[in-house]
């Protein structure tokens, strides 16, 4: 028993130190860049910039970087823009790694672009020292590029498809006992059917919504789990990006709204309160229609992003400390936080699914409780 425990702890410690080494290679490159720009030779540096490291690892970008100790390669993903002169596709290596808006890329239609903090703007619409934000929509073309997050979605999709396809193949032959990966997936599917879908949506109508609930659960679970892997091609941050959780929450909102029946809309637009309170209650009810998916979005995003930020900051503690003596302490904290993050990955996927099921159940519930209220009134 203790032999196994020792082996697991050793493996976890090696994984963490592997991540620290690969980050060290990458930040050594960053330090070299920084000291080139500085003309004077300062003693160590003005302070290791943890914020820069965190935003480099967690934000979306147009390049996909492999940072294994034996393989340092940057894949420049294609940039696909829809401008007012048509579609324009070019590899992002044309920007030559520039993120400060200095390199101007001209495409074959004559548009010029600059890139500032991973956002692409039209070069001729920017002033000389202007700092535009990503929400200045008239200065930006429509950006449909394949970025790091899009390849992350493709990875999650391929993983999800492989797991589910292999599971389905096991059940094709009804005479054989299920074995293999079906043994892992089937209890989870039964759990979602029996403890999430049926109690909230009801035995009569839950089957229509099972595909959506299963997809959402497994997509969020796999994306969270892949984000925890410290190896370089896998550690992308998918559910920690607010745009992705925004899309998931929009799906829940659309499904809830489109399947709302008459009673749902009756409760929102003509609630069961005295008519004088309607000017207050109706805006509150309409607002609550939007805040529920909003809360879903922010909850998943903030939990996963906070977890990833803590992990990166704990490893960066070694570089702030400056000595190698901090490494065992930092390694221990990172192992401890990894267990918590594993639990959070499962819990957040479960919470998103069960709250979606709850909202769908509220939207399609039939009217049973109003009769009871009237009966109670009459008997008293």
């Amino acid at each position, binding site marked *: 028993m203790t032999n196994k425990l020792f082996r697991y702890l050793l493996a976890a410690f090696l994984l963490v130190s592997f991540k620290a080494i690969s980050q060290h290679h990458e930040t050594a490159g960053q330090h070299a860049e920084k000291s080139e720009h500085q003309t004077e030779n300062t003693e160590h540096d003005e302070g290791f910039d943890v914020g820069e490291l965190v935003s480099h690892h967690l934000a979306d970008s147009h390049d996909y970087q492999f940072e294994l100790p034996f393989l340092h390669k940057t894949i420049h993903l294609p940039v696909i823009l829809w401008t007012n002169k048509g579609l324009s596709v070019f590899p992002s290596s044309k920007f030559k790694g520039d993120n400060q808006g200095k390199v101007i890329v001209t495409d074959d239609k004559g548009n010029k672009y600059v890139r500032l903090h991973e956002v692409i703007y039209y070069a001729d619409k920017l002033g000389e020292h202007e700092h535009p934000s990503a929400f200045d929509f008239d200065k930006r073309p429509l950006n449909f590029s394949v970025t790091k997050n899009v390849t992350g979605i493709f990875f999650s999709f391929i993983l999800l498809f492989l797991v589910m396809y292999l599971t389905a193949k096991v059940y094709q032959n009804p005479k054989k006992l299920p074995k293999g990966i079906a043994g892992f997936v089937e209890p989870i599917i039964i759990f979602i059917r029996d*403890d999430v879908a049926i109690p909230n949506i009801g035995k009569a109508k839950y089957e229509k919504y099972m595909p959506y609930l299963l997809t959402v659960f497994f997509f969020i679970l796999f994306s969270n789990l892949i984000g925890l892997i410290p190896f370089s091609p896998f550690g992308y941050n998918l559910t920690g990006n607010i745009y992705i959780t925004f899309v998931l929450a929009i799906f829940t909102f659309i499904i809830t709204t489109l399947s709302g029946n008459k009673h749902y809309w009756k409760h929102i637009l003509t609630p069961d309160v005295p008519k004088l309170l309607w000017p207050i209650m109706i805006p509150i009810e309409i607002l609550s229609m939007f805040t529920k998916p909003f*809360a879903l979005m*922010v*909850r998943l*995003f*903030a*939990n996963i992003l*906070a977890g990833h930020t803590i992990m990166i900051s704990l490893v960066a503690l070694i570089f702030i400390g400056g000595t190698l003596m901090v490494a065992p302490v930092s390694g221990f904290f990172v192992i401890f936080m990894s267990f918590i993050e594993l639990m959070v990955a499962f*819990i*957040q996927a*479960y*919470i998103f699914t*069960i709250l979606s099921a709850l909202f769908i159940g509220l939207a399609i519930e039939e009217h049973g409780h109003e009769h009871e209220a009237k009966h109670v009134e009459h008997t008293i």
Partner: protein
Amino acid sequence: MGSLAGIGAGLAAIGAGIGIGRIGGSATEAMARQPEFANKIQTAMLIAAALVEGVALFAVVVAMIK
């Protein structure tokens, strides 16, 4: 002004700590009273903890934006 954001996030952490601590306390007390319902109580505890943590993380997100 980064330190004000840090203070805000710290206050949110206090709120989350108090809330989840109380949830955990009542859940274990209820499980001690009726051990046969321990599974359902644990499920309810996890859901309530995730909701409380969600509210605390709203504050963290606002602090991060500043």
